């Protein structure tokens, strides 16, 4: 009789608990989805592998997390929002998250938040100040940056971002939206008033459909979009500063090892991404008649399109 995956995971966890006595068992929960999660998973595994045989890593899809969590692992690393949500709801400790766009929405600490016992993580969020600094270099003539956001979700972040923008001599014009359907309406109203659009990490605004529409509207109106991930840049955003998934995963693995090594209940603050990648779409720049400096192009980790269309 074939064993189903959850049952198999439970069985393996039980066997490991008995047979590998003295080893730390780390449950690696991985959300399904973008390739970035795979890269982050690889980073986690690489970090844990550095400890050698004293660490037993169990990789389980987020969908099968319940059974694996029942095996009482010594630590849980959750890659992606789905895995983090399941582990948080299960009360898994110690818990380290990675590749979670909005940890606060899951009750997890974000960088800059007070540390919680046995809970930590590595955020994808690049500091707004750094983003605006990069944007400033990309678009020296830009003065007004527009942003759409759900105040209930991203209100504090926008407020801090506005301050960061001002420090760069930019005016962040924030337009609140209440739901997904309001995004394009507000975008049409916003675009004529701004020099560029900042697509911040707001789950209400940046749905897949809205993201593409927002980029297209911006291009039609001659306004570049500054995004938060490499994928947006491939789809037409001018540029993005995004966390390196592998580096995020590696750092998350290291944090997990730190929590295993530390006394139970130790609190470690959440960390920003250890490495930030710059992506630039030169085709978009060309369409928008933007001339990018050679220096920043050299700094870029990814230039799109990779072959000249």
């Amino acid at each position: 009789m074939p064993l189903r995956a959850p049952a198999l995971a439970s069985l393996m966890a039980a066997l490991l608990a008995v047979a590998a006595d003295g080893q730390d068992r780390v449950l690696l929960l991985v959300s399904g989805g973008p390739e970035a999660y795979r890269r982050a998973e690889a980073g986690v595994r690489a970090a844990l592998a550095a400890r050698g045989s004293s660490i037993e890593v169990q990789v389980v899809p987020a969908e099968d997390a319940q059974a694996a969590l029942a095996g009482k692992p010594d630590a849980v690393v959750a890659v992606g929002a789905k895995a983090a949500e399941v582990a948080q709801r299960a009360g898994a400790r110690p818990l380290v998250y990675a590749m979670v766009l909005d940890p606060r929405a899951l009750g997890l600490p974000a960088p800059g938040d007070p540390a919680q016992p046995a809970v930590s993580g590595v955020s994808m969020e690049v500091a707004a100040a750094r983003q605006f600094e990069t944007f400033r270099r990309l678009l020296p003539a830009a003065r007004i940056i527009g942003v759409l956001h759900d105040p209930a979700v991203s209100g504090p972040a926008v407020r801090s971002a506005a301050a960061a923008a001002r420090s760069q001599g930019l005016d962040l014009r924030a337009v609140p939206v209440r739901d997904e359907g309001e995004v394009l309406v507000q975008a049409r109203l916003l675009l004529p008033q701004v020099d560029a659009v900042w697509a911040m990490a707001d789950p209400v605004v940046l749905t897949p459909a809205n993201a593409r529409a927002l980029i297209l509207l911006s291009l039609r109106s001659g306004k570049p979009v500054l995004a938060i991930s490499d994928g947006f840049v491939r789809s037409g955003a001018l540029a993005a500063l995004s966390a390196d998934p592998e580096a995020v995963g590696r750092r998350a693995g290291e944090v997990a090892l730190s929590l295993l090594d530390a006394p139970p209940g130790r609190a470690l603050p959440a960390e920003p991404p250890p490495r930030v990648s710059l992506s630039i779409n030169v085709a978009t720049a060309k369409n928008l008649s933007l001339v990018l400096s050679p220096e920043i192009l050299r700094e870029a980790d990814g230039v799109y399109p990779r072959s000249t269309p």
Partner: protein
Amino acid sequence: MNRLAVRIVLPFALVLLATCGLAAWTLGRSVRQGALADLRERTSLLAQGLARSAELPMLAGDSAALGELLEEAGRDPDVLDVTVVDAAGRRVAGLGKPEAPRRGRTATVLVLEEPVRTASALDPEGSAFALDGGAATPERPLGQLRLLVSLARTEARVHALEKQIGLAGIALLALCAAIGWATVRLVGRPLRQLVEATERITAGDLAVRVAASSTDEVGTLGRAFNRMAEDLAAERSELERRVEARTVELRRAQETLVQTEKLSAVGQLVAGVAHELNNPLTVVLGYAGLLVEKTKEEETRRKLQTVLQEAQRSQKIVQNLLAFARRQPPARTEADLNDAVARTVALRAYQLRSEKIRLETDLQPDLPRTWADFQQLQQVILNLVVNAEQAIQECGRGSRIVVRTRAASGAIRIEVEDDGPGIPESARTRLFEPFFSTKDVGKGTGLGLSICWGLVSEHGGTIEVDSALNRFSRFTVVLPIQARPAGEAAEAKPQAALPAHPATPRRRVLVVDDDRAVLQFVGDVLERSRAEVHPVQGGREAIACLARGEAYDVVLCDLRMPDLDGSAVFRYLCAHRPELEERVVFATGDLANETSATFLEGTGRPVLAKPFDVDALRALVEQVERV
């Protein structure tokens, strides 16, 4: 298939075939055009959608996204290839199928080209929600999308539909053919039966009938046909009955005509014979009478008496023959034939009662009178009644005689019917011949019916005979109803009376005859009556005597003489000796001759019918002597 089926079903089938064919062709064409239009519209929408979706990847140079987009489009089974080229015509993305397959002469590929554009600025008036081209203006070309669509599946669907349409058409044709066949069977079979029945009726079989149980038009037609056949049968039966009746009437008329002709010929013969017998019989009668008077010896007297009786018997026979053959007009009055019947029945009533025979009368009360000789017709009725009476008596069978009168169709019918032995078929055609009799020898002369025939013929009528052996005999006298001619007196003209003439002691009598024996006999008789007889032989001699101016008290003149007949003598006498005109007495046996009878009736002079005996001659001479 019969003609009706050909005339009805074949045109219907041809029209139906043409209609179905046209409908199938039109429908197939419509289906093909519709399917192609649908495909074109669908793929056009697909191309437009792809072109719109390609806008962002083209702007972003995202060939991967463009490739995913085209691969997504390529999942459409009708899409053979999608290629996107940039504004310079360089291939940006595609499914890798640059050439579309072709099959046969028909292009199986639909090529759609759709420009990929983008807006250079937002239209402030555009819809805030729209992302399509209408919301962006003016547009800037980014490239071209070329969509190759296979028509194979559409063609296959169209072919399948055409096949289904064709099958449906064939099924419809088959259904209509079945309906047509059934209709022809339903309508044609009764009609064939009608045709066959009509042919049989034409061939004379009026008993044929057709089945007509249905309530539709065919059933109605069948019932009408049956009624027509019944009517035809009834009419043919009636016609046959009429023909048979007419044939019987015609046969009777023919028989009557033959009988009439035969009797007419017999009458002429009889008249001639009687005339030839008249003169010798007159002499025999006369001298036998004279000898009887003169003879004293008893034995001789007895023998002479026998001669006289036989001569008188011969005289009666000759008179009867003349009565049968005579054509002299009857003495007519407006006769009541019911009265004639009543009087005749009264004559025979007592005799018949004594013979246990019932004599019944059935007389039409309002029987019209007719211009006829009452006495003669009474004689006819009496003769027929006596015949019936004798027939019943002779065979001892029957007890009833009925005399009827009826008026119909312008004629009076007097029927004398008895329930006696009937008349054999062989005897019916000879009943009216003189001397033909079915009675026992000595019971009749065989002249009764002949005389009746003659009398009735004189009235323009006829006598019909109907009989069935051992059942009945019926003689019907048919007399045309005749009105009294204008100028005729209601009663018969009285017999001409001899003019008064003073008697002389010795009368002179001029006797004119061509027969010497008759002259001798008349002279002997009149000489014995103290008359002075001046006999002359023939008309010329008589005229010569008259021309000499001799006076006569009586001129007894024969009518038929070889040189000059009595009429010539009479005309001479009227012209030259008018004082003797009313002294003329004609003696003739030629009363049956119509010319003679007419002449005699016109003179009004008395006639001494030959053969006459001594008493008749003396009586007439005495009558003349008293004048």
